């Protein structure tokens, strides 16, 4: 007790800094070690293994240079995977955000908007794999015992549609994707919209603005930074699309036909495919392409969305 500092006298600033410094490494090192061990090393290993021929089943990786990449370029399966992934990112993204914007226009003024928001978020708490199975049942084409979607179509006198046929499946998956993800982005965007001072909308009302004009001149500019972040989030999650396609486009037990593949399905098939020894080397190369794709898209999106932030 005798050594305690006198009450009321602040400790010397140097002492605090010294203590902070002493604590720096005990806090910093475990975090860095874990990060390096579980993120950096696997990523570097993925890049390195992408240059090897390795089935990942007890054999030794063999350096083959860019062979995996030239194989990817020549592979139909990869070409379909790449193009489908781009399609899901772009078309699915445009659809999701259009829907989300539409709802931000409506929900703000709607009575019970909070409840609707909660309901719209529901698909996000269901695993995509379950959604895929669910849509598989809803969309089935089976004369005399149609799935729900075709049953409804037929009951209003429209011919049933072969939703799950290979030539339609990509568009059906896109639709399901939009349905499943828009709730999440509506929630994010609405959180941003709620921050906007109501008097701006009241002003617009007095000026006789239409909902579209309010969206265009108030909502969008004032949520722009959030829209940008949401766009990045969408891109990152869309590059990884896997389960929904795997179960909706195929039987679920085997890989679907290559025409419906995404990069996620491609990497899975090459690592744990139906038949044959795994091809980890090829899978790693494809994973590197995914990393590059997401990096390029995110940087491009950030540049495209760059605006001065409006203070309010």
């Amino acid at each position, binding site marked *: 007790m005798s050594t305690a500092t006198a009450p009321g006298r602040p400790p010397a600033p140097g002492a605090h800094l010294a203590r902070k410094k002493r604590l720096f490494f005990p806090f910093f090192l475990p975090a860095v070690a874990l990060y390096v061990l579980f993120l950096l090393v696997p990523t570097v290993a993925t890049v390195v293994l992408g240059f090897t021929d390795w089935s990942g*089943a007890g054999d030794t990786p063999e350096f083959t240079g860019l062979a995996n990449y030239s194989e990817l370029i020549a592979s139909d399966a990869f070409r379909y995977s790449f193009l489908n992934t781009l399609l899901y990112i772009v078309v699915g993204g445009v659809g999701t955000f259009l829907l989300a914007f539409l709802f931000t226009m409506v929900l703000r003024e709607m009575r019970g908007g909070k409840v609707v928001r909660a309901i719209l978020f529901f698909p996000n708490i269901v695993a995509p794999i379950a959604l895929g199975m669910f849509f598989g049942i809803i969309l089935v084409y089976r004369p005399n015992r149609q799935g729900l979607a075709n049953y409804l179509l037929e009951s209003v006198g429209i011919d049933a549609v*072969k939703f799950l046929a*290979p030539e*339609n499946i990509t568009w059906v998956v896109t639709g399901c994707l939009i349905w499943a993800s828009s709730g999440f982005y509506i929630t994010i965007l609405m959180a941003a919209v709620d921050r906007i001072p109501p008097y701006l909308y009241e002003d617009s009302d007095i000026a006789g603005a239409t909902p579209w004009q309010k969206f265009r001149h108030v909502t969008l500019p004032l949520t722009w930074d959030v829209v940008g972040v949401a766009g990045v989030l969408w891109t990152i999650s869309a590059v990884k699309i896997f389960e929904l396609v795997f179960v909706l486009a195929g039987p679920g*037990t085997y890989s679907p036909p290559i025409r419906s593949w995404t990069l996620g399905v491609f990497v899975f098939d090459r690592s744990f495919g139906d*038949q044959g020894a*795994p091809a980890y080397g090829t899978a790693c190369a494809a994973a590197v392409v995914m990393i590059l794709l997401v990096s390029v898209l995110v940087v491009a999106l950030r540049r495209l969305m760059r605006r001065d932030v409006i203070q309010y």
Partner: protein
Amino acid sequence: MRSTRLTALAAVSALLLAACGGGASGGGEDALALPGKDEYLAAPCPEVGTKPTTGGEFTYWSMWTKDEPQGQVLTKAMNCFTEKTGVKVDVQWLGRKLLTQNLAPALNTDDVPDLFDQDVSQVKAAIVAPGGTQTVEDVLDYKIGEGDKTVRDVLPRSVWDFPANKDADGKIFEIPYERIGNAWWFNKDLITDFTAPQSIDELFGLFDKAKENGMAAVSQDGDIDFYNAYFYTQIAERYVGAGGLEKAALDKTGQAWVADPNLAKAAEPVERLAKGGYLIDGWDAAKFPQVQQRWADGEAAYVFLGGWAPSETREYLAKQGGDKGITYATFQFPQPEGATHRVVEQLPLGFAVTKKAKNPEAAKAFIAYMMNKDILSGIATVADNLTSRPDLPTPESMTDIKAALDSDAEKTIFMDGLDALSGGKWVESVFYPLNNDLLKGKLTAQEFVRQLAAKQAEFWKTNG
């Protein structure tokens, strides 16, 4: 009506059972008298022929789940083996995907099972190719606990001695315990005036008759690529013989597909099947197993499937409730005009031992023990499938398939092994997409082979 007949059948079988005391010899009428499941599981354990000298334990990774019929049979086998030898079995029930999802990654470590199972084709592609197995050729001379009989004495050569069951040194890597065949299936209660077709025209005659009777002719789960491949490969094999398709597929120029006109001719019946509207409406817009369930419901007359058709559809019908059953019957593809090879597809399914196994001797002794008639017969009686021993009882629904497999026709594995080429990449990129188009009527037979040739040349350029 149906339920009374079933009850009568059950009563008759029970009587027969009582009469023979469970010692059914199999085949023909006796098939009805197979000892039941409970009887099999309660039967005393047979002796072990070749006992392991080491004792201890071994590990087994299984392609089945514990509650499946095959899982129950294997559980009994393991319990008996432990009882007779004192060797414990450390089993993990991993299911069908164990090779690529469990075993292949485990091969990078020393923590591998001693014993595992799956069909020959998948084991070869996933585990044998990277060198993960050791030969089980020595097991052929192990005794099975029936006097001096060895594994070699009870398994016909065609069950284990074929190229798809050979490793890089030309030695066999698997001892099969189950044989899967495939066939056209129909319900005898619905198709009453059936005569087995002797030509492709007669086959289509059956289909036309089904359509006249207001049924769809053929049910097909179109979202499984390899189900869609049955039609072409079955017919083509009869023109080019066992191994012929694989040879064509390995031709780097792809020209083999157009050089032999029979390969195009084999696609003509498939084109006819597609364009004639024989496939059930919606076959290409549903999810497995919805379409085969429509067959089970009686919406379609025929379905081409492996020997698993009865167990899968029976399970579905049981879940649906009601008293509707199916009297299963099968026939093989008829010989196409001008085809000179009689070919039967089989898919043996058996045990293999890993290269890094710590207790290979115990694992191999267990394989031999599995071949004992009192153990192996469970595959037929409990699991409703064909065993690898022709002298054991046969489930009634499998008698035709067994006759085909036991005949002197050339044997090849399913799809002539095409699905294992280049680790599955050949079918995935070259064959399946074009075959699907053929079955959808988008390609003619000629276009099909021409595009196969072109696509294949392109494929081998980068995968050669």
